[in-house]
């Protein structure tokens, strides 16, 4: 530790404290004051660890990314809660100051901030945005209509594979081409067509599932959707066209060749390959905004109110002359289409897909936890839940860089002998994350069943308040 880092640390912490006090005085509600204090404490803690702790580069990345994620998630919550314009500006100010302190401090300490920020953009905005999209779809199905879809991973996988097969040019090799007996058809269409194809195919499958099960009791839909997802998984694992268990690699990303300057001779591109993901995140956030506004509009329309009526009492809705089967089918198909788009976006950002990537925990259980925690029947709540739980899930992944990978156990008490080199990483890290998330879910279900934000009251614009 040299004197420079000591001075920088103390200076940074003083600035963080001053900013915290400044914002604390200007906060309008108690929540906003708490938010200001939290931001200040977070930056102070991070600066302390950065300058005075002995961090490896991976640990720095983890701490910085978790700090950034926490800031973004908490500010999203307060941003949606804020009621006045001044409140919105306040939240934005605190967020920017905290992020500035975190990343500015790291830049001072000589960390490559831009690439770490790309990491944050990838985890938080690309994947978080995709979860946000699937949450909006799930919220339409469950929060508004009461359709219990637990096959989200099936629809996402279907969308991903459809889009990949449509977009993949013929000269790119598949991951398992040598296993395939028949030549694999390739279309090489632009990304837009892949997206549309994924949306349409998912809609078609949802239509078939819905026609067969929506007239029955509500849990049959659950069994049918999870069964469909299983069929899709097995098909992806065993058909030659999907590359079997190895999946498909080298999936083209939209506008990648045009945007990215891959070599000195490349005349069209102007972006470094590492920062392409920023463009992608922008695209996903735009899609998220469009779907959010559209679904918010839908939810307030007469159609959305019929959905809620069906959710509350299907017989009453039927008695009022609404064909509940038709409405449920439309809701299911619309939601599944958005899930298909999620799959397409995901495949083209990850650039390689395998059947195992679409597992039920990550694409079905996690969205459900997000929805329950955020508050079903409320699109804002769904988004808050998506980003919050995704941040929590990503942050718990960072344990890998802080905990030992293996522990040698050597116990010998005569009657009881246990000697083993315990594989902590393989045996504990994955399960612990899941246990944390599942326990949070159970606690929310028991103590706050309506979620963080609860359901929004929606009244027709014709009704006078």
């Amino acid at each position, binding site marked *: 530790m040299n004197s420079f880092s000591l001075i920088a640390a103390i200076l940074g912490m003083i600035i963080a404290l001053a900013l915290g006090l400044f914002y604390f005085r200007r906060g309008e509600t108690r929540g906003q004051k708490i938010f200001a204090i939290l931001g200040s404490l977070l930056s102070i803690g991070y600066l302390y660890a950065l300058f005075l702790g002995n961090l490896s580069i991976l640990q720095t990345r983890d701490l910085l990314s978790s700090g950034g994620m926490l800031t973004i998630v908490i500010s999203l919550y307060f941003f949606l809660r804020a009621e006045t314009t001044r409140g919105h500006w306040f939240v934005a100010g605190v967020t920017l100051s905290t992020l500035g302190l975190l990343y500015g401090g790291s830049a001072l300490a000589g960390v490559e901030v831009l690439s770490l920020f790309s990491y944050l953009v990838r985890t938080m905005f690309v994947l978080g945005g995709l979860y946000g999209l699937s949450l909006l779809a799930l919220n339409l199905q469950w929060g508004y209509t009461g359709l219990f879809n637990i096959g989200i991973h099936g629809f996402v996988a279907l969308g991903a594979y459809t889009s990949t097969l449509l977009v993949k040019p013929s000269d790119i090799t598949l991951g398992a081409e040598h296993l395939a007996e028949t030549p694999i058809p390739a279309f090489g269409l632009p990304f837009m067509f892949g997206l549309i194809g994924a949306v349409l195919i998912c809609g078609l499958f949802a239509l078939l599932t819905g026609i067969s099960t929506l007239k*029955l009791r509500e849990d049959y839909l659950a069994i049918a959707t999870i*069964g469909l997802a299983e069929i899709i998984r097995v098909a992806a694992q065993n*058909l030659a066209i999907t590359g079997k268990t190895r999946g498909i690699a080298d999936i083209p990303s939209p506008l990648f060749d045009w945007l990215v300057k891959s070599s000195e001779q490349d005349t069209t591109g102007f972006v470094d390959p590492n920062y392409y993901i920023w463009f992608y995140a922008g695209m996903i956030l735009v899609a998220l905004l469009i779907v959010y506004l559209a679904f918010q509009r839908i939810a307030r329309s007469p159609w959305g109110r019929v959905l809620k009526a069906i959710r509350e009492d299907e017989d009453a809705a039927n008695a009022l002359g609404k064909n509940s089967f038709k409405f449920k089918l439309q809701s299911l198909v619309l939601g599944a289409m958005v899930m298909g788009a999620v799959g397409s976006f995901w495949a083209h950002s990850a650039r390689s897909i395998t059947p195992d990537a679409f597992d039920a925990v990550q694409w079905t*259980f996690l969205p*459900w936890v997000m929805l329950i925690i955020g508050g079903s029947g409320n699109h804002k709540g769904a988004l808050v839940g998506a980003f919050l739980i995704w941040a929590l899930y990503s942050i718990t992944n960072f344990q890998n860089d802080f905990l030992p990978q293996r522990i040698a156990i050597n116990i010998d008490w005569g009657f009881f002998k246990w000697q083993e080199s315990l594989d902590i990483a393989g045996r504990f890290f994955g399960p612990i994350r899941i*246990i944390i998330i*599942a326990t949070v879910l159970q606690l929310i279900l028991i103590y706050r*069943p309506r979620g963080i934000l609860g359901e929004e009251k929606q009244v027709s614009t014709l009704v006078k308040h």
Partner: protein
Amino acid sequence: MQQSQTHKSFFIRRWQLTSLISLSAVFLLFVVFNEGANKWFFDSLSTLHAQGVQALFSGIRYGCILLLGAIGLSLTYKILNFGNFAHGDIMAAGIGIAISLNDIARGVITSLMPDLDNGARELYSLLFAFFGTVMITPWVSTALDRILYKRFRKAKPVVMIIASFGMALIIRSLVQIIWGTQNLGYGQHISITPPVVLVELWGREISVRISTQDWVIIGAAIVLTLLLHFFLTYSKLGKAMRAMADNPDLARVTGIDTERVVFWTWWIGGALAAAGGFFFCLAFGPFRLFNIGPQILLSLFAATVLGGIGSPYGAMLGGLLIGLAQNVLIVFIPYEFNPTAWQPAISFALLIVLLLVRPQGILGGSK
């Protein structure tokens, strides 16, 4: 009105019959006139002829395992009105407990009775593991009920389904933490020397591999289902259970201690799941334990719904049918598509087709 409707549509409606017949006609025409389809169909038929008896037998064996799990799922489905997604993982926990008990018992028996021969030692330790897991695993499922599900008695069924989905993941993670990710089984010493039985069929001798374990599995499944049948029919608790499955409010009014019934429902469901898991490992082990839960759960749900939710006898029938279907129907999948991987998918396709025709399941009531 509902009565008359159910009478009219006792098994199949007219439009369903018409579409079924026309679909089969299209299929037949396809098979007759398309050369590829023709070859596929007759290849499959000859495979069925060669392997049919073996597939039938494997199907019955797997069905016996599935029905043990499906009974517990069906009982809780009817009495608490929700599908317990943690059932498959309770089964996996039961397998884990059996494996650990088997290891412990083998060690103890070896040190206490060193001059015992291999076969007897394995038999004793397996017996100990079986009874141990059947006695221990039920406490896992009852503890689940006490800790979690009890808080949701008045909630909507879907809330309980979500809670059970979360609980399934917690149990799966605990299983992974406790038993690790390596392949586990009852040890290599188990004699897998399948006696080949020759069956004469259509003037042709066909060899079928039937090991002693298979007879044990089938026999034990028969004994356990008979025990359950006598329990449900003659014992006071069994009658209370059926009454509660029929109408919980009425059962409460007549003075049945519903919480006690719920407790024993979970206990019996857990015990049968443990027995099913024990046999599952005996038949298919060694395997990676934490993968088993979701894999078997899908088949269990298919069996429960196929037989008719809430009817234990329906669950037995459904389990057998799903086991048979998974083993016999894969004959029709060409070899290059890896037929065994499609087993769960087949049961779901069958389930969805059946739901279209008969939504309440085979033995389900009118509702």
